[in-house]
């Protein structure tokens, strides 16, 4: 889809001929994220007026009893800017709020902001570098202090200080944040930034109270008692916390949203395993809500049959995919295996890659292994099957694979394995130890054998495979095998960081201790140019077209073969009415949760 067509679509939305929702769904189908699509509309001056409010059934504060949540991995601290994973982010979001959060449609919903900045309200300057946030008035911290612009300015300084060692440092370190008045802040990016809403929104944007954190900025950050005793602005305030086990909170009587929260208290239990967490919600009803139920779909369906709880699959952007190594993992060049100077003997032939893509029975694997937890896809960026991109498609066809290989001169030898010259189609296929992955490996191997390709299956313990130990030869970062399979996650609504992983600059190699992210070592000049253009392109429509192009380039080359979108299952008690989002933390809108009588 080209820039022109995108513009026409946006024009249709403006005129009211195309519902906002359909537009966003189409963009998602093209491999964009919903928040990005919504930002395109905002930029074009299509206001968020059509954004429906989050439904809330409560009529008064409190009276709802205790809300019991179970996370099968417990949070170990409660500082949002130390939180690398969702478990800590979710737990801290109970107490802390961001200026805005992302709903499932990708709309930015104001939380601590009075309104979302836009061209129309003067929040977004014409230079594409300056964003002015108006803050909500009358908000108090749990200890009674007022929430002001100083807190926002401080949060950026705290998180952006490398000595504090936050995980959000990259977002804030080059940012200039100024206080305009007591309830207005101006955010200035070092250069024109198309995706201006990264700071202060969502899971990376939780605002900290200056008066509590100021004495502990920098190297002393670890000693702050507030790392385990949070003081926030959220719907629930802190009661007690045992790291890795139990978090207790009670309703905040001075919460800034009227009639919220519905529940009197909240408990978040951590630890155990996913299956018994699913049982506690779906079978015994001891808990109201469970996070990330990574359990085989067949079992979940059985538990759900009891009728006590339901499952919801949030379509985020986790993608399970196969990489075909671009470099030669078996022979050293300049003392390095998988050197970027080498070429993979077989995969440098596009015919072999195309054949490999045809030999993966995505539909079969989805039906028999992943169920609702893995939806076959042909796009690298998230793609629900209803809105499949017209540019790419997937197919399972052994005959066609055979034909392609035959035509390219790969002839079957006496042992049934195809070869050309002295290169044989014999590959090592590695992944982490996990039942569905080993089953998938076996299915791929079976199809490959029929096409004259021999696969040797290898599975590495997850701790080693995903560990970043530079001395271990079996990590996914080194990728010292021909083929590997794993899931990659896009937690941020903007795809820029995500798509960076296929740029030439990001190729993982010895020189950078394999710490960068282009593990397949794919390099494409057109892709690099498109990425560079997208980085500096602040017209969101042009930018979107660039990302779509990048997606098509990666997928079209077949070094990277997307398999499944992996929606994350959450379980909840039948009577609970949660407010969830695929683009933000599970607890992002906890104030809106209610329970039917």
């Amino acid at each position, binding site marked *: 889809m080209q820039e022109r067509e995108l513009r026409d679509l946006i024009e249709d939305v403006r005129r009211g001929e195309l519902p906002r929702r359909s537009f966003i769904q189409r963009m998602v189908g093209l491999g964009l994220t919903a928040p990005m699509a919504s930002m395109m509309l905002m930029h074009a001056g299509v206001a968020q007026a059509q954004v429906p409010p989050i439904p809330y059934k409560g009529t008064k504060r409190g009276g709802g009893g205790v809300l019991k949540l179970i996370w099968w991995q417990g949070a170990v601290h409660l500082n949002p800017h130390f939180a690398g994973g969702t478990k800590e982010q979710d737990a801290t979001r109970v107490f802390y709020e961001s200026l805005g959060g992302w709903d499932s449609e990708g709309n930015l919903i104001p939380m601590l902001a009075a309104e979302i900045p836009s061209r129309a309200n003067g929040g977004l300057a014409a230079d594409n570098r300056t964003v002015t946030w108006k803050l909500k008035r009358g908000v108090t911290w749990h200890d009674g202090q007022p929430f002001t612009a100083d807190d926002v300015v401080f949060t950026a300084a705290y998180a952006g200080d490398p000595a504090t060692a936050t995980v959000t*440092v*990259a977002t804030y370190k080059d940012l200039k944040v100024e206080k305009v008045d007591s309830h207005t802040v101006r955010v200035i990016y070092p250069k024109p930034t198309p995706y201006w809403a990264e700071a202060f929104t969502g899971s990376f944007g939780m605002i900290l109270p200056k008066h509590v954190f100021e004495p502990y900025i920098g190297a002393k950050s*670890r000693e702050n008692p507030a790392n385990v005793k949070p003081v926030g602005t959220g719907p629930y305030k802190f009661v*007690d916390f*045992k*790291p890795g086990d139990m978090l207790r909170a009670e309703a905040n009587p001075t919460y800034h949203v009227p009639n919220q929260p519905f529940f009197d208290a909240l408990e978040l239990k951590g630890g155990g395993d996913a299956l018994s967490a699913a049982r*506690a919600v779906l079978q015994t009803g001891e808990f109201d809500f469970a996070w990330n139920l990574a359990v085989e779909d067949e079992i979940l369906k059985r538990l759900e049959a009891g009728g006590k709880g339901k499952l919801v699959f949030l379509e985020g952007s986790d993608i399970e995919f196969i990489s075909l190594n671009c470099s030669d993992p078996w022979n050293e060049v300049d003392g390095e295996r998988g050197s970027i100077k080498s070429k993979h003997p077989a995969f440098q032939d596009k015919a072999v890659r195309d054949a490999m893509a045809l030999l993966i029975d995505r539909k079969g694997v989805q039906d028999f292994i992943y169920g609702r937890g893995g939806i076959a896809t042909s796009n690298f960026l998230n793609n629900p099957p209803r809105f499949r991109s017209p540019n790419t498609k997937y197919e399972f066809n052994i005959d066609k694979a055979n034909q392609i290989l035959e035509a390219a001169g790969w002839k079957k030898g006496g042992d049934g394995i195809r070869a050309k010259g002295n290169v044989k189609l014999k590959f090592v296929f590695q992944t982490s130890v996990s039942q569905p992955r080993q089953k998938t490996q076996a299915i791929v191997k079976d199809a490959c054998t029929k096409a004259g390709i021999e696969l040797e299956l290898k599975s590495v313990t997850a701790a*080693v495979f995903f560990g970043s130990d530079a001395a271990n030869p079996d990590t996914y970062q080194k990728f010292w095998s021909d083929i590997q399979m794993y899931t990659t996650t896009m937690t941020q609504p903007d795809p820029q960081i995500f798509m960076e992983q296929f740029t030439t600059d990001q190729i993982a190699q010895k020189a950078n201790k394999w710490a960068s992210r282009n593990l397949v070592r794919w390099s494409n000049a057109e892709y690099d140019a498109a990425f560079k253009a997208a980085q500096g392109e602040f017209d969101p429509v042009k930018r979107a077209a660039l990302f779509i192009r990048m997606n098509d380039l990666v997928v079209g080359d077949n070094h990277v073969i997307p398999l499944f979108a992996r929606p994350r299952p959450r379980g909840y008690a039948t009577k609970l009415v949660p407010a969830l989002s695929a683009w933000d933390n599970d607890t992002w809108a906890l104030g809106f949760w209610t329970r039917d009588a």
Partner: protein
Amino acid sequence: MFNYILRRLLIALPSLLGISLILFTVLALAPGDPFEELAQNPNVPPEVRMALRAQFGLDDPIWQRYFYWLVNMLRGDWGFSFVSRIDVDELVLQRLPVTIAVIGMSQVLALAVALPVGVLAAVKPYSWFDRIASTFAFIGFSLPTFFTGVLFILFFSIYLGWLPFVYRADLPETGWQWWWAQFRQSIMPIMVLGLFQAASWMRYVRSSVLDVVRLDYVTTARSKGLAERVVINKHVVRNALIPVVTLVALQMPAVFGGAIVTEQIFRIPGIGSLLIDAILRNDTPVIMAVTFVFAALVIVFNLIADILYGWLDPRISYR
């Protein structure tokens, strides 16, 4: 006696040092990285991870890190957890009460079952009672706790719906209700652990009593006309207890170490679950602290067992 204890404690020092060295080296050589989660999160640039590694001293050579750990440990500073950045001693102390309560109760239960059943079975060997008790004992210690635990949950919590299977350390109830809730949530893990332990201890008690009951002095005591109760309690059991004391004493560190699998199944926030979480997250300081405390306790309880021998059997002297 005092000299003996002092000598034993002095011998314990080098062994503790050796243990800590081995533990530290193995952990340092093991694969994994506490910041693995960050490595997998594309929004966190690799520099953040590198900076954290450097800040927490993970890039220093192993001997330097060990030395640093040892000096701090001697000063009473246990270090801090890499993943939560909380002091390790605080984490351990938080988990200790629950572990002692649940595991301690299960050991008490195990003793309360194993001692009388073992003695009775040995006094009348190959009677119906002995046969039934032995059969149950064999079943008991052949079934691993992770199996019985899940079985209990499926039956009592899910099929019957009587008991909760998620343990909570801070019950909201007060007074009698608190005790009742505590009983309901602890009964399954205590039974699972206690009966498993009781099964093997019962066999030990039985065989040890069987050995003693045949000795001449017991026959003498009986021919003196002493009541059977007195013979068994005063003369047989007391002597038969010596090997059992060793077993129980060596088991005591487990009370502090927790029961890793059972704690995980019932979500008991004890030391065992702290340890397994720390291992899964490669949180070296926590693993180090818990395993080291465990090693120290094994040594201490060995000593206590040796001292108890003397009390049970005055013929054993300490030089």
